[in-house]
């Protein structure tokens, strides 16, 4: 490993960390504004730059974009209360166990295309922390560790409601991990690859997975084999998205923290920054989940209709630096779009009952995913 690789990876770690941690407050803000707009309200629109404090005539509202900062300061200043009846070690460990996996799994997501470095001739940088060959699997593996944070939080709190929340979440997350993993197998069969960077690159050449129209590529504009597979891919997309809702404990599957039954579930006993870590972990998981959906089904950083083929350097397959940065913007736009979708669904669909949730996972999605794999495999074997 030479110095250049080391430095560029370190910078990438910082960049990805910053992006995910910035998207978390942005999604909190969006959650509040979108929910308000859906309910004919306005939502937080006041907190901006308090310029009047520095002698200016008017405050700068910025549509209340600084509301999450105010929320964060509030959470920092709240009393950090640890009840006497808890198991202290695990009580403190649990919030970290929720937050860390969510941030870790962002490592394999390609945030942009392969970039020709502007000042280093002939050097190329992949805009992802770790371009490993097992991208989605690594995300599932690390995401499966998130459940410890919730279970341990429920157990260590040593009280009824958190415990019920922990028990619910462990059963729910294990069940839906299976659907999550099985549902994308048709997609992986189609790509024949587990490397998210290459999956995104292929979609930039042949069009997005769910929008397989590409001009200027090597192949035809519309590949009929992809069209044939499209129904199975669509089913995979639906199962994957719904399972992701369950896996990230988002409504309508937010039973572990179901406030009408369990006060607020596994984080009932938490306050101040410990609670904030749970909160941020949930949103970080949502950000990474959206990024994974976008990368697998909506072309990752790729522009639609194979427009990238016009900019690409034909010899190396890399992009000039401005195109790479634009791709990063495209990717973030898509991710934020999906976050808004998550929020939109949350404020539309009422919460499922626990037995309905389990039935949906084991009776509907599990079988559907298996049948879908079989169908996709047969189609690929015959026409692929």
């Amino acid at each position, binding site marked *: 490993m030479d110095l250049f690789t080391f430095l560029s990876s370190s910078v990438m770690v910082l960049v990805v960390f910053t992006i995910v941690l910035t998207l978390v407050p942005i999604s909190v803000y969006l959650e509040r504004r979108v929910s308000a707009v*859906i*309910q*004919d*309200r306005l939502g937080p629109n006041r907190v901006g730059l308090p310029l009047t404090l520095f002698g200016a005539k008017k405050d700068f509202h910025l549509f209340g974009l600084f509301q999450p900062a105010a929320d964060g300061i509030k959470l920092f200043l709240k009393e950090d209360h640890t009840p006497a009846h808890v198991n202290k070690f695990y009580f403190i460990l649990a919030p970290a166990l929720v937050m860390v996996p969510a941030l870790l799994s962002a490592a394999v997501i390609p945030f942009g295309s392969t970039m020709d470095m502007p000042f280093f001739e002939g050097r190329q940088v992949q805009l992802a922390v770790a371009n490993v060959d097992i991208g989605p699997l690594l995300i599932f593996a690390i995401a499966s560790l998130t459940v410890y944070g919730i279970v341990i939080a429920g157990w260590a709190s040593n009280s009824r409601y958190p415990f019920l929340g922990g028990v619910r979440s462990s059963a729910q997350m294990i069940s839906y991990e299976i659907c999550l993993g099985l549902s994308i197998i048709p997609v992986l069969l189609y790509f024949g690859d587990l490397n998210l960077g290459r999956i995104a690159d292929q979609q930039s050449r042949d069009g997005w997975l769910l929008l397989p129209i590409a001009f200027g590529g090597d192949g035809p504009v519309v590949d009929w084999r992809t069209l044939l597979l499209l129904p199975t891919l669509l089913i995979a997309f639906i199962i994957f998205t719904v399972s992701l809702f369950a896996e990230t404990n988002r409504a309508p599957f937010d039973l572990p923290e179901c406030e009408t039954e369990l006060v607020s579930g596994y984080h009932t006993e938490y306050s101040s920054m410990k609670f904030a870590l749970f909160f941020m972990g949930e949103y970080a998981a949502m950000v990474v989940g959206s990024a994974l959906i976008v990368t697998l089904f909506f072309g990752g950083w790729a522009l639609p209709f194979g427009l990238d083929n016009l900019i690409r350097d034909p010899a190396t397959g890399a992009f000039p630096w401005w195109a790479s940065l634009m791709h990063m913007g495209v990717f973030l736009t898509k991710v934020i779009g999906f976050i808004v979708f998550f929020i*939109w669904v949350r404020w*539309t*669909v009422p919460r499922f009952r626990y037995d309905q949730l389990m039935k949906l996972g084991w009776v509907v999605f599990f079988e559907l995913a298996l049948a879908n794999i079989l169908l996709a495999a047969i189609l690929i074997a015959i026409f692929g």
Partner: protein
Amino acid sequence: MAYIKIKRPRLGLFEKLYLPALIKGLRITLGHAISTLRGKKRETMQYPEEKWDDNMPEHYRGAPALVTDEQGRERCVACQLCEFICPPRAITILPEEIPTEDKWAKVEKRPRKFEIDMIRCIYCGLCEEVCPEQAIFLRKDYAITGLTREDMVHDKEKLYEIGGVRTGLVNKWNELK
């Protein structure tokens, strides 16, 4: 106890799929979002700029206040009925005798101290209902604020300031409050 058997509707395949209903729901929420974004529909009042004042309902119960009559006499005779009935015990009255040389000496009693602790007040309106002299009324003031607990105690001057003068035959049971 009779049991009522509810017949659950039998769902067809289309309804069981759940997705059509989901899309329908998403369309409804999207419709609300769009109409709010275009400014057509809005339930929120932008508080410091827009206030309730004009659209306050007739029956609104705000801060309790004392009133004087047309001759400038304070109507309260310090009977302390409101103090007794007040459920959160927000009212404190210290009565005094009206000196004989006073114009209203015949009334005999008036409050020397009349305080309502607005942190305690629950705006129930029992004081208004119980008052035999029609001296205390619930006005439409709702923004009662203060930086300390002392600020939140309304003394006699403050109560008269809110209440003002009630002229003519004040009948607390009619519309003219």
